[in-house]
C-alpha cells in the first residue's frame, strides 16, 4: 500500500485553507464533528511533522481513548492506540527500552486528569523524555457529553444538568508542582504558538507537557447555550489571558479563565539517559 504524501503546500495562514490531510485514507474523510477543534490540532501536528522533517520511527504517536482517537486518520507517522488513560506508562516503556525514541502522547482531559492522573503525575516527576499533548475540550465528547474533571464550575453537561458543582482541574499547575520541566498551555485560537511549542517540546530533554484547549460544539456548546461552533471558539478565545497579563490579576479575576503561554522551562536530567549511566555504573561495580 503506497501512501499519499500529506498536504504539499503550507497554508498561508493557519485558519485559511486548512484541509484535513487525511493521509491514511487519501483525502476521503474525517470523523470529527463540524467545528471540532481536534481536526485543526491534527493538521497542526502534521505541519510540525513535515516542517521539522521528523523521523516516524523516532516519534511514534501514542494515542489514548476519547474523541481524538480517530485523529490517526489525519496524523502522519506511526500511531499506537492504547487503553483509556494508559498512554503515559506505555510511552514510558517505549522510552526506557529505546532512549533515542521520543514518543508523542496524545491524551484527552478524561484520559489524563481522570483515569490516568496517577500516571501523569508520576511521568512529570520522573522527567522521562516524552511529549504529552493534552487535548482539553472540557467534556467527555465520545461518550455523549458527560462532565469531565475540566468542566468549568457551573457549566452544564449531560451528567451535570443543573450545573457542575465541582471545581475544575488546572492541569498546568498540577504538572508544574509534579515536576514537569516544560509546561505550556495554548488554545485552538493560538495555532502558531502551539506549533512553536510542539517543536520545542519534541527537542526538549525531559517531560514536556502542553495543555491544548479546544472547542466541543456538539456537546459542550449545545449544553451551554452556544449554538454555533464559532461561539464556543469565541468563548475560549475570550476567556484566554496571556501569562504576562495574568500576573497582576487576582485569583477571583482569573476564575474560569484559560491562562495561555509557556509556564515553565527548567531543564533537569532526563530519566532514560540517566538509566544508561546507571547501566555503565552497575557493570563497572560488578567487575
Amino acid at each position, binding site marked *: 500500500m503506497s501512501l499519499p504524501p500529506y498536504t504539499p503546500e503550507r497554508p498561508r495562514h493557519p485558519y485559511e485553507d486548512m484541509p484535513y490531510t487525511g493521509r491514511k485514507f487519501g483525502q476521503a474523510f474525517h470523523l470529527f464533528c463540524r467545528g471540532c477543534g481536534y481536526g485543526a490540532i491534527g493538521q497542526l501536528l502534521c505541519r510540525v511533522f513535515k516542517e521539522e522533517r521528523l523521523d516516524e520511527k523516532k516519534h511514534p504517536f501514542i494515542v489514548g481513548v476519547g474523541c481524538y482517537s480517530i485523529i490517526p486518520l489525519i496524523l502522519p507517522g506511526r500511531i499506537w492506540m492504547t487503553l483509556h488513560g494508559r498512554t503515559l506508562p506505555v510511552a514510558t*516503556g517505549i522510552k526506557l527500552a529505546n532512549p533515542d525514541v521520543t514518543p508523542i502522547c496524545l491524551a484527552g482531559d478524561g484520559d489524563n486528569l481522570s483515569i490516568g492522573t496517577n*500516571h501523569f503525575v*508520576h511521568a512529570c516527576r520522573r522527567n522521562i523524555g516524552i511529549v504529552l499533548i493534552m487535548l482539553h475540550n472540557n467534556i467527555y465528547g465520545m461518550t455523549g457529553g458527560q462532565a469531565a474533571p475540566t468542566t468549568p464550575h457551573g457549566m452544564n453537561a449531560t451528567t451535570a444538568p443543573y450545573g457542575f458543582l465541582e471545581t475544575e482541574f488546572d492541569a498546568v499547575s498540577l504538572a508544574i508542582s509534579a515536576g514537569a520541566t516544560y509546561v505550556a498551555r495554548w488554545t485552538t485560537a493560538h495555532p502558531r504558538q502551539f506549533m512553536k511549542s510542539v517543536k520545542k517540546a519534541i527537542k526538549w530533554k525531559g517531560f514536556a507537557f502542553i495543555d491544548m484547549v479546544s472547542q466541543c460544539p456538539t456537546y459542550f456548546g449545545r449544553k451551554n447555550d452556544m449554538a454555533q461552533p464559532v461561539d464556543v471558539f469565541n468563548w475560549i478565545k475570550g476567556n484566554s489571558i496571556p501569562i504576562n497579563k495574568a500576573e497582576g490579576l487576582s485569583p477571583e479575576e482569573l476564575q474560569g479563565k484559560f491562562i495561555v503561554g509557556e509556564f515553565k522551562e527548567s531543564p533537569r536530567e532526563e530519566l532514560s539517559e540517566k538509566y544508561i549511566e546507571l547501566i555503565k555504573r552497575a557493570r563497572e561495580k560488578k567487575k
Partner: protein
Amino acid sequence: MSEYIYEYDMPPGRYVWMGNTAMVEGALAAGCRFFAGYPITPQNEVPERMSQRLPQVGGRFIQMEDEIGSISAVVGAALGGLKAMTSTSGPGFSLMQETMSWAAAIEVPIVVGEVQRTGPGAGIVSLPHHSDIIQAHYGGNGEYQVIAFAPATSQELFDLTIEAFNAAETWRTPTIIFSDSWLGHIHEEVKVPPLDELKKRVIPRKKVAYDAEGKPLKRQQYLPFTMYDKKAGEYKISITPNITTEYFPEWLPAVTHTPQSIPNEFQESSEIMVTNINNKILANEEKIVKIDEYFTDDADVALVCYGLPYRTALRSVKMARADGMKAGLFRLITVWPFAKKAVRELSQKVKKILVPEINIGQIVIWVEAAVEDGTEVKPIPAISRLHEPKELYNEIKEALN
C-alpha cells in the same frame, strides 16, 4: 539502544536460591531485559533482585506507580523491542486484567509472574493459595487465551520461566507463571547451565520476518497480526512488530481490527479477530501443553495436580505404591491452555480421578468437563495450606475401596 544489551552473565554452577530469585534468574537467562513492577508481598524479592541484576545485563528496571502502570509499561517495552515481564500478587493481578486483555488482543508477548497469596480482598500475604487460576484465564474483558505455567520447585521456576518466555514469543499471548507465597520463598538448589546450552533453549526476539523462500519480508507483505492460512490449515503467527523497525503498522489500534491492523466495526472483522487470537492457542493445544505422568500406566486411581500440591501428591502416591495400591499421578505443568486431550486419555485408563488443589476447586471443573466415560472425579480442596501426604494417602485408600 541495542549496544547496551548484554548476554546473561551468571556463571554456570549450583546455587541455593529462593523461588523468587530463581524466577528472576530464569527470566534474565531467557533474555528478559525490561521489568516494571510495583511492591506487593509476597513477590517483593522479584523487583528487588531485578533492580539489582537488570542493569548488570543492560536491562531496564522501573518501579511504576501502580500495577496498571507496570503492565502497561511492559506492553510498551515489549513492542519497543525488549523481552519484558512484570510480577505481582493477588489484588495487583486483578488490576492487571484490563491490560492483559488488551495485550492478548494486539498479540503482545508479555510474561507475568503471579506469586499467589490468599484472597479474597487483601487476604493473607504469607499463606499459599492457588486462588487466581480461573482469574488468569477469565479475569479480563472479552474472550482471549493465556498460557500459564505452574512450577513446583526453585529449579522449575528457573527452567519454566525460560519456557514461559519462549511460549510468549512463539504464540504472542500473555503468559503467566503461577508461583505462590511458599514456593516463592523456598530456598532450594538451582543448577544454572552454561551459556551455550542456555542459548539453545531460548527463542530470541526476531526483528526481521522471512517468507517461505527465506527472503526478508517487505513492509507491505508483513501482517502484524495472526491470520488463518486456509491452504495450510493452520494459524500463521507473524513476528512481533517493533516500534523502531519498519514492520510497525501505521495504526495499531486497541479496538477490534483486521489482521492487517485496520480498525473497523464490522461483525466479520470481530469474528475473525476473536477466532484467531483464541484458536491460535486452542488449535495448537498439543504443541503448547506440557504434562508429566507418574505410574499412570496401570493405575486405578490418579491424582491430577499442578504447582506445589504435586510434591505432596508424588509423595503420597509413592507411599500408596509401597503399600501395593495402584495409584498414579498426572501433573499439569501448563495449567492454561487446559490439557483436555491428555486428561481425557487419562480418564480412559483409570477408574477414579482425585484433584487435590490448594483452593476450593478451580481446575476440577475442567477435569470434569474433559472426562467422557463417567470416570468419577473428586476434588480435594485445601484452603491456604498444603495437603498432608497422609491425607492424600487416605484419600487414595478410600478411593480404591
